[in-house]
């Protein structure tokens, strides 16, 4: 049996089943959680040294590396794609589990599963008419388009945020395709350096566009403000995981990008602008979702700056930062979703003092958000501190500016904390449900555990590095 067909077929069948059962949101949520969690565990534990394995529950033998060729594209599971698949499934499972507590509309689960299927397909592509890494922006256009339907998740939201998601991949794909042609010409004229330089410049600009640094960043805070928090966290993390994997494949396949251009410098400045703007805008954000979005933007800027660091040390740190980012974003989303539900869409009167009635969810939101800006004793502190040390080796001034921006974001969270834990205005605000308090407590414990023992992530990161080693 063909493994890629089995994986995609299973996800398609589950998507169809959840669509037919979409009126039963709790049942579809549980089904999606169980299936994606099971697939994540299987991906994580699969041993590629044995080419033929028996599938659990089914008992059928399957060839792990058997390819699936359709329409000129080859889908095949490789050792490098396993951590990406496991990470994608794990994020999806966590998000489906967290979304069980709040209503996300009947279409959320099937549409999110369809999107996850798309990301799995992207990770499995091993060959195509041109290099898969250079075709990826086209697939990201399709996945970003599907994300628009998932963002609505049962509520009417403004269209600007989801709409802006489409712009970076659409603007970047011509650069990737034209650079693919130049790359194909390099072996024909190896002494012509202009071909290599042109390809490197086009790819550099294309990657920068895809990363959506400031001023192309506006999709993230806009969607964080209007879309359900857990949906925002899931879609943002899935997109950025696929993006990081794509960038590594491009840089490792075409190393002349960093040699023929000042790609590192552009990435540093793009990351700096993003981190600074995220921190400054967070200081002035009055909406909890928007504040969270700007904090996530600041964290993304730090990741971009670490990406710019040459050498083999940067990718473990990038993966470490991304893992901490995922934990922080999901922790904040847990608390934010309950605050949103109880405050009837963040109405100012209801938000004032809501922390006195919902202390655990408020604490989860604050702790997760502070983890995105590297506040001490939060999940992101160790990662941000290591990143600043790495950046400061070349230029301490840049690291100081980023720290100031982080401080600015912390100021925004202090204002928010005063609002949440201040005098309550609406005395009829209900106390938080014990189950939701447990959810928030688990998120807080996860963040605190990583703050105290970041080495818990070393094992998964080393495993993921195999993906980023080809």
């Amino acid at each position, binding site marked *: 049996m063909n493994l890629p067909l089995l994986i995609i077929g299973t996800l398609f069948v589950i998507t169809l089943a959840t669509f037919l059962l979409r009126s039963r949101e709790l049942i579809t949520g549980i089904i999606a959680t169980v299936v994606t969690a099971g697939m994540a565990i299987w991906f994580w534990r699969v041993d590629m040294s044995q080419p033929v394995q028996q599938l659990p529950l089914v008992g059928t033998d399957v060839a792990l590396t058997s390819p699936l060729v359709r*329409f*000129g*594209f080859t889908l095949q599971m490789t050792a490098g794609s396993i951590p990406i698949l496991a990470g994608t499934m794990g994020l999806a499972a966590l998000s489906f589990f967290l979304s069980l507590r709040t209503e996300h509309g009947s279409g959320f689960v099937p549409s999110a599963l369809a999107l996850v299927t798309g990301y799995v397909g992207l990770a499995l592509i091993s060959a*195509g*008419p*041109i290099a898969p890494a250079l075709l990826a922006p*086209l697939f990201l*256009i*399709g996945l970003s*388009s*599907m994300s*628009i*339907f998932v963002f*609505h998740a049962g*509520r*009417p*939201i*403004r*269209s*600007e945020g*989801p*709409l802006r998601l*489409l*712009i970076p991949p*659409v*603007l970047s*794909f*011509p650069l990737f*395709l*034209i650079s*693919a*042609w*130049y790359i194909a010409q390099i072996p024909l004229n190896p002494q012509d350096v202009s071909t290599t330089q042109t390809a490197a410049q086009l790819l550099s600009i294309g990657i920068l566009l895809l990363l959506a640094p400031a001023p192309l960043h506006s999709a993230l805070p806009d969607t964080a*403000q*209007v879309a359900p928090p857990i949906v925002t966290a899931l879609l943002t993390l899935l997109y950025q995981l696929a993006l990081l994997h794509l960038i590594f494949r491009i840089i490792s396949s075409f190393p002349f990008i960093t040699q023929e251009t000042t790609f590192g410098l552009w990435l540093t400045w793009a990351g700096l602008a993003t981190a600074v703007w995220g921190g400054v805008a967070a200081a002035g954000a009055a*909406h909890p*979702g928007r504040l969270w979005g700007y904090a996530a933007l600041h964290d993304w800027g730090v990741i971009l700056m670490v990406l710019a660091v040459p050498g083999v040390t940067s990718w473990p740190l990038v993966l470490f930062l991304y893992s901490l980012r995922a934990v922080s974003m999901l922790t904040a989303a847990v608390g934010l979703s309950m605050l949103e539900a109880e405050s*009837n*869409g*963040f*109405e100012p009167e209801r938000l004032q003092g809501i922390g006195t009635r919902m202390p655990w969810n408020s604490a989860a939101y604050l702790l997760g958000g502070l983890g995105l800006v590297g506040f001490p004793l939060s999940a992101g502190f160790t990662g941000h501190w290591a990143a600043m040390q790495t950046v400061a080796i070349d230029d301490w001034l840049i690291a100081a500016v980023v720290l100031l921006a982080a401080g600015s974001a912390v100021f925004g969270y202090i204002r928010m904390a005063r609002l949440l834990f201040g005098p309550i205005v609406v005395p009829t605000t209900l106390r938080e449900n014990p189950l939701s308090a447990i959810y928030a407590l688990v998120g807080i414990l996860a963040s605190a555990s990583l703050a105290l023992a970041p080495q818990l992530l070393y094992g998964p990161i080393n495993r993921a590095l195999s993906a980023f080693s080809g």
Partner: protein
Amino acid sequence: MSLVFSLLNFLATGPGMLITGFFAILMILAWEWRVSLIGLILIQVGIAPIAIFLQGIDAQWVTVQTLVIILCSLILALSTTQIAGSPTSRQAGNWPLRLMVVILLYVSWRLFQFDIAIPLIDSRVSVLFNWLFICALVILSLSDNPLFTGSALILWFIPMHVVVATLFPFSSLIVLFGFLELILALCCSYLILAERLGESEQVTIATDVTFPNTVGPRQLIDRSGNERTELLPNDRTTMDLLAVPLVPELRERQAKLPPQDAPPTVKSDQITVSQPPSPSDTTQRLRAVQPKDRTGEHPLVATLSKGKRAKKPK
């Protein structure tokens, strides 16, 4: 369709390319959804002879691409026709501003001799494609709604189809292109329709049985997209509407009032038109009406139907 493109082969000449480029300017200047969507089709029809006769692309592929663009425009047009009066149909600035933008764009184009060479693409065609790319970027920068952003993104795809078909003549890639264009159009169409989901009707809260509620669409005031369920000071309720008491009820009230507060007596064939209550006076509801007058009728309606002012008592 190949015959149609053969008839239009003048568009593959210099003046023809100028006409195609002019359509892109027209999309920016007019900033009207009909002009934008028809402009997309006209630009694609203008690009098609270039692709076939200058770039040597298979006519079948160009035909499919043209049909896809027509379909995309139809999808967007169908959604736009259903949302009359929405933010999507609003103009970005005014036409003098957009004219200045176009003039500035052209002056910069000539001043900086902006020309990015595209491999395997004729130099004249490359100039046209660069112009279309820039026009798409201008539309993206001026718009923040699904319709015009979608038009700009599809405009971005039109010349790239020719480039990709020239550089990589693989049918799977062309199919993927068309698929993505349709997906983009569907997504933007969905967002156009979804803009209306946020509109809520201003419903007068029923607190008394009087007249039908006053309803009308209005835009969201809640930026998070949630409808309001609580009263605000400016909300109107049925208590704010003028109530017309029944005659027996009025007689009882008049009997309870002190003599100095009692309304003036009237004759049987006269009605007393009292001063209308002030907007802030929600408690003054009494009207002096004749027994023979119709009850349950708004005083204004009664006044208009009588067609005369009340005469002062002698």
